[in-house]
């Protein structure tokens, strides 16, 4: 009986597959499909193969196949009725296996649409990234296709399709495409309804799916449950229609499916609740902070990577005019202090330290703290729960903002950065993870620098650290090739720009080419001697890319020679900001024309003739450069950084004269 049933399943599958694929529309659809991907992605998206499959290409594929799947299922379901074969077919001694076979044929037909995106991704490479990405992509896409296909079959089996049925299917698709995105700002768990996975990317080139924790598993379990539910629903409809009875197998499957979907959905939504709860933590301190930490010696022991142990020695300076007996530092609440040389009281995000003897004004002392805990900080971003900071056997991502080391935080401020301090970080018992930081490595698993105001520590089996000339490249293995090209660009630019900042004492440059998942740090001040650039590899035109390089290097060098630049958001632009912009503009021209003053001036004039507002500040710099060369500009830059306060007060129209006056002084 089972053998006969299998034969019927197979023949239904084969016949339906043939009817679907041998229709002239099907190859035409493949040609259009391939052309669409070629047009949209080849040469326009330089993500790695796996990143393509997990993000842009993958999302477009799954989204569009969902729509095609609804229609194709409709075509298949209505075939018997359209050709008036249904009445005959229903008198055959068959059961669910015929519908099952036809469902499977539609599934396979749709799965074949994954070939084009896979080819596009393979073309992009690298091969290792493609190989790693294929199985996950096939699983995700396969699950979505299976669900959509089963849903359409179940709905249309229940009610025979008419022409308007296709419109309803399209409306359902559109509702599920737009609805979750519209709802996600008010109700982020709505992303669970996004069966097409639009806007939901569970991937990072550096950490894979690690930063999304178990959310992708619950998401997939939810849809696996729904898929089973629809399949069981189909079975039940066929059973009632054909045998006038309830199918015990279908009922059993419905129960299992409901449990799976309920479990997956609850856990997925629970992930949001947990992340929301974390974000409600009180992170401000309303008391003045009287200390500054001038030195850090941090040892992170990963003998148990799930619960790392920290041994920290802090050099604490009393900034107050009185004797200091007690002060407060910020430390992530997940850590529990196990040992200290002072009395410690941990209250939420804060630790109160009581010194055994009062610290005189201007005096320093050493504070030793040992603490441990499992750190995993989650955030809700674009409708998904994303882990921004974590320590895990499979990887590490730590930013200063989560206070994984004690911070002396100013009144009412959140600390993404702290006062520059000497910093030494040593990682012990590293379970073999390649590790890197925004401060230079001074040995294996050891990073140290002066004037460190933030620490960004990353570790992952996929992480690659490579020295290219004076650039330390930190990137994912899949992004290595474009990362190298970027490092070469940065190296060239650094050499060209450094002569204008002779006091910066540049020792090299740290270039972190990472995905934007988890959020790229917005402000990345340099460590002593090392400009730090954190960027992603994607989508920049050559011109904007070169401008970006100039600006990022110039801002760090500006900072390294003592200049200051504040975020211009929500405050008026000052002449200091305009002075910096003029320097960046000059450096761009300098790099473009390789320092040829005549050509730089000509290009500048060409730009002016094209109708743009004449940048008199830049014009002044160019004139001075023509007369005095690099040293003249270096002097002006140096003076700009030294006289920041003066420049901030200077009227805009006085700035060109100010620049000329500095140039003339020389």
């Amino acid at each position: 009986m089972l053998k006969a049933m299998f034969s019927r399943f197979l023949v239904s599958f084969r016949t339906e597959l043939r009817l679907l694929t041998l229709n002239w529309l099907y190859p035409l659809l493949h040609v259009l499909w391939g052309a669409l991907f070629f047009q949209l992605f080849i040469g326009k998206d330089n993500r790695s193969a796996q990143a393509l499959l997990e993000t842009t290409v993958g999302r477009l594929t799954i989204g569009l196949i969902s729509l095609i799947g609804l229609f194709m299922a409709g075509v298949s379901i209505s075939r018997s009725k359209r050709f008036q074969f249904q009445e005959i077919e229903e008198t055959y001694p068959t059961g669910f296996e015929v519908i099952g076979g036809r469902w499977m044929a539609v599934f396979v037909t749709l799965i074949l649409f994954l070939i084009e995106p896979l080819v596009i991704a393979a073309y992009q490479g690298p091969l290792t990234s493609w190989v790693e990405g294929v199985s996950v992509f096939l699983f995700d896409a396969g699950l979505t296709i299976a669900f959509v296909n089963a849903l359409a079959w179940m709905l249309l089996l229940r009610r025979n399709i008419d022409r308007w049925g296709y419109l309803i299917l399209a409306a359902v698709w559109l509702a599920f495409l737009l609805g979750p995105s519209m709802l996600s700002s008010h109700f982020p768990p709505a992303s669970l309804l996004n069966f097409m996975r639009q806007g939901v990317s569970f991937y990072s080139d550096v950490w894979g799916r690690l930063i999304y924790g178990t959310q992708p598993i619950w998401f997939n379990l939810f849809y696996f449950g729904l898929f089973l539910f629809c399949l069981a629903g189909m079975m039940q409809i066929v059973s009632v229609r054909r045998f006038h009875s309830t199918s015990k197998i279908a009922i059993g499957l419905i129960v299992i499916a409901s449990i799976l979907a309920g479990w997956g959905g609850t856990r997925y939504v629970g992930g949001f609740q947990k992340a929301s709860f974390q974000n409600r933590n009180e992170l401000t301190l309303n008391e003045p902070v009287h200390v500054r930490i001038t030195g850090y010696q941090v040892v992170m022991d990963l003998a148990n990577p799930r619960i790392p142990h920290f041994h920290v020695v802090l050099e604490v300076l009393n900034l107050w005019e009185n004797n200091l007996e007690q002060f407060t530092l910020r430390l992530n609440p997940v850590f529990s202090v196990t040992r200290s040389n002072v009395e410690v009281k941990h209250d939420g995000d804060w630790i109160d330290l009581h010194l055994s003897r009062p610290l005189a004004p201007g005096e320093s002392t050493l504070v030793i703290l040992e603490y441990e805990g499992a750190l995993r900080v989650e955030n809700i971003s674009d409708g998904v729960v994303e882990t921004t900071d974590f320590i895990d056997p499979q990887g590490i991502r730590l930013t200063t903002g989560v206070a994984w080391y004690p911070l002396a935080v100013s009144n009412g401020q959140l600390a993404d950065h702290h006062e520059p301090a000497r910093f030494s970080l040593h990682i012990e018992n590293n379970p073999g993870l390649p590790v890197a930081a925004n401060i230079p490595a001074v040995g294996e698993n050891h990073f140290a620098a002066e004037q460190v105001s933030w620490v960004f520590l990353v570790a992952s089996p996929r992480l690659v650290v490579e020295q290219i000339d004076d650039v330390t490249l930190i990137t994912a293995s899949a992004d290595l090739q474009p990362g190298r090209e970027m490092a070469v660009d940065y190296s060239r630019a650094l050499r060209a720009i450094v002569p204008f900042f002779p006091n910066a004492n540049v020792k090299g440059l740290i270039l972190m080419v990472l995905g934007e998942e988890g959020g790229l740090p917005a402000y990345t001040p340099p460590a002593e001697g090392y400009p730090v650039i954190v960027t992603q590899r994607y989508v920049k035109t050559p011109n904007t890319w070169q401008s970006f390089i100039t600006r990022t290097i110039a801002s760090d060098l500006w900072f390294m020679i003592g200049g200051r630049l504040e975020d211009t958001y929500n405050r008026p632009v000052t002449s200091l900001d305009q002075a910096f912009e003029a320097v960046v503009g000059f450096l761009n021209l300098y790099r473009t024309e390789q320092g040829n003053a005549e050509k730089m001036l000509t290009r500048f004039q060409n730009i002016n003739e094209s109708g743009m507002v004449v940048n008199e500040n830049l014009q002044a710099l160019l004139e001075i450069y023509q007369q005095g060369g690099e040293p003249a500009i270096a002097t002006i830059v140096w003076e700009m950084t030294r006289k920041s306060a003066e420049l901030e007060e200077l009227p805009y129209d006085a700035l060109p004269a100010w620049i000329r006056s500095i140039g003339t002084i020389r």
Partner: protein
Amino acid sequence: MEIIVENLTKDYGQFRALDHISLHITGGMFGLLGPNGAGKTTLMRILATLLLPTSGRVEIGGFDVLRQGSSIRQRLGYLPQEFGFYPGLKAFELLEYIAILKNVPPKQRKAQVEAVLAEVNLLEQAQRKVGTFSGGMRQRLGIAQALLGNPELLIVDEPTAGLDPEERIRFRNLLVGLSKRSTVLLSTHIVADVEFCNGLAVLEQGKVVFIGSPSELANRARHAVWQVKVPMEQWSEVERRYTVLATQMTNGMVQARLLASDRPLADAQPLSPRLEDGYVAVIQNHQKQREESYA
């Protein structure tokens, strides 16, 4: 294969399509005759396990149609009034596909497909796409699919509708041949189609108004069929008063075959009744009874 129908009723909402029908079919070729809308197709669809009765009992070969539909389907060949096939498949492929669905054993499959194609005279067209078939060929292919699996019961609903006379005769002969090995249940509103049935039932407005053999049906019009010849100007009066079964014009005179319980005109000649006359008599009688009961 024995078919027992007891007190069968089928309602579509407020409309009663079948009204307490009872039939007992023992085998051979059985015809269901009735005007359009009489309930023939509804009855056929219930027997073919496509529809559930509202009440009553239907048993086919000892299997209850409600509870043992699968067992009935295993023994059933069905050809509905309106049907079609996937036009992209060749006749042989289509029948092979259906043979698998009908559980024809793999070893017999090819031979059986060829046999039914030969039986309906389509063997030479086996490799032609079904979409290119004419109406008659398509009808024969319909019978071929119904014959697959050697069904004990063959249900054919209005199989000759739309066929040309030659095709109709060929088709009728084919069914007669098939009735020697299976029970053939034939539904039609064309009286000539049931001439060769062993038994037949006439349905009118959801009720069985006659059960018997074709000759018994014809006998229902015995002593009631007359031939008259009237001038043209008197014809309208005759037509108004009597049921006209057939007419013919000759030299300004109308020669007609009438149904009347008494001699309609003095020169009217009695005729021996045909099957069609019996059918009309039965239907008229039923309508008359209904009108009387309303009155």
